[in-house]
């Protein structure tokens, strides 16, 4: 097939002009696009309103589709639960009995802990949740790792707030519409979380790797402190994330750090809970850096 030589306007002066102006317009479009791109690289906050509006306009679609898929997968897994139900029931009863014993022990430890803390006069900050929503989508076609959650500024969400699931940390809000918000996941390269190893308490830095895993490095250079299976929790340093929220589990060591898998998988968590920043003063700083890192 011979190539089409583009639109041929023929002898019509009007058609020729319209083709020429269309060419001028696409060159102008290129220039405008480059200017907007440079603006979004140097000053991403300038698009907060338009990005929030886009989130609001599209959130009902994502939420609706997400409800449908949840219902369909729920029907299949619900049917699967009836398979071998008697054995499962016996197993669950055994597990429950074991957990009851552990819980009594834990409660005793908690009591003792509270007494010790009272003796030391440590103040406990209880973080009440701002809002809880579902994870309804993600940036599955970009090297960045974002998720969209179904709560926004009308629920009290603000840019910079930490987002967690019951299982562990998910990330922090970087765009907030009034009905939905975009979350920078802990697996994104630009999300750096001050953390520590649960066992031993050595301070580490957790950075996303962009492929669903997390890179953890010790703050102090020296012997590699990680063991496969180590749990990484937030340290609370910086004041944005509350301390002792699980982030990831180490799966593999490399030369001076380790690769870890996030504990809260955004595709499986039931709810994403938005919390106020641990230190309220950190919100302004976090909003600032969220804008710069996007």
């Amino acid at each position: 097939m011979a190539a089409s030589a583009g639109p041929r306007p023929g002898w019509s002066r009007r058609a020729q002009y319209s083709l020429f102006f269309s060419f001028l317009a696409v060159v102008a479009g290129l220039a405008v696009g480059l200017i907007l791109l440079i603006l979004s690289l140097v000053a991403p906050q300038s698009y907060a309103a338009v990005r929030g509006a886009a989130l609001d306009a599209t959130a009902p679609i994502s939420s609706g589709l997400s409800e449908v898929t949840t219902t369909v997968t729920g029907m299949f897994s619900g049917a699967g639960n009836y398979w071998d139900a008697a054995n499962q029931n016996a197993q669950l009863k055994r597990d429950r009995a074991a957990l009851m014993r552990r819980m009594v022990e834990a409660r005793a430890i908690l009591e003792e802990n509270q007494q010790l803390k009272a003796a030391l006069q440590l103040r406990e900050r209880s973080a009440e949740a701002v809002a809880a929503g579902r994870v309804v989508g993600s940036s599955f076609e970009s090297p960045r790792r974002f998720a969209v959650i179904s709560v926004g500024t009308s629920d009290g969400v603000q840019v910079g707030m930490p987002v967690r699931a019951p299982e562990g940390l998910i990330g922090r809000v970087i765009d907030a519409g009034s009905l939905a918000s975009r979350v920078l996941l802990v697996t994104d390269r630009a999300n750096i979380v001050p953390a520590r190893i649960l066992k031993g308490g050595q301070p580490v830095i957790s950075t996303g790797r962009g492929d669903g895993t997390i890179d953890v490095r010790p703050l102090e250079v020296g012997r590699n402190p990680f063991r496969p299976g180590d749990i990484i929790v937030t340290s609370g340093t910086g004041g944005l994330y509350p301390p002792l929220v699980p982030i990831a589990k180490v799966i593999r060591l490399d030369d001076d750090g380790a690769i870890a898998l996030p504990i809260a998988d955004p595709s499986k968590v039931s709810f994403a809970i938005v919390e106020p920043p641990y230190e309220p003063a950190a919100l302004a700083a976090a909003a600032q850096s969220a804008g710069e890192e996007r």
Partner: protein
Amino acid sequence: MVRSALGRPDARLNKGPRAGADYVPAISVVIGSLLSLLPIVSASGWWPDFGLLMLLGWRLLRADAWPAWWAAPLGFVNDLLAGNPIGLSIALWSAMMIAMDILDRRTMWRDYWIEWAIATLFIVLAELAQWRVAAVLGAGVPFNTSALPAIIVSVLCFPVAAFLASRIDRWRLGR
């Protein structure tokens, strides 16, 4: 007797293009961009950019699918829906329209493999640009685990987009 009178009553002989045929290509590109709203929560960003694939499918099929400058607003919609930095798709898609105009004048011969090669070139450039922009924004992920799989998946998905564009083209023209 006109030929259309001989066909079935629902046949579209002699009826011309469907209503709104001029806007169907652009709408199909927006629908491609809308696919990024699917409730897929993926650990890696290897899925193709469906809006870009539809744009390339249409532009390689016809030079007059839309006036070239429509690429800019279509890119803006794609940026908003996919959560890209605003301006990335606007600039890329406009540049692709200009590049395709030049290519249309330079290439003497066009077949399926050449179209796939051109599409591959554009997909690689677009993914590289997206990867570089992510790096500038503080997310410098390694090429091999982020951009390369995305390029391969997109290139392999392009024939589907080209097929869809040609079927939609036949439908909108009432053939």
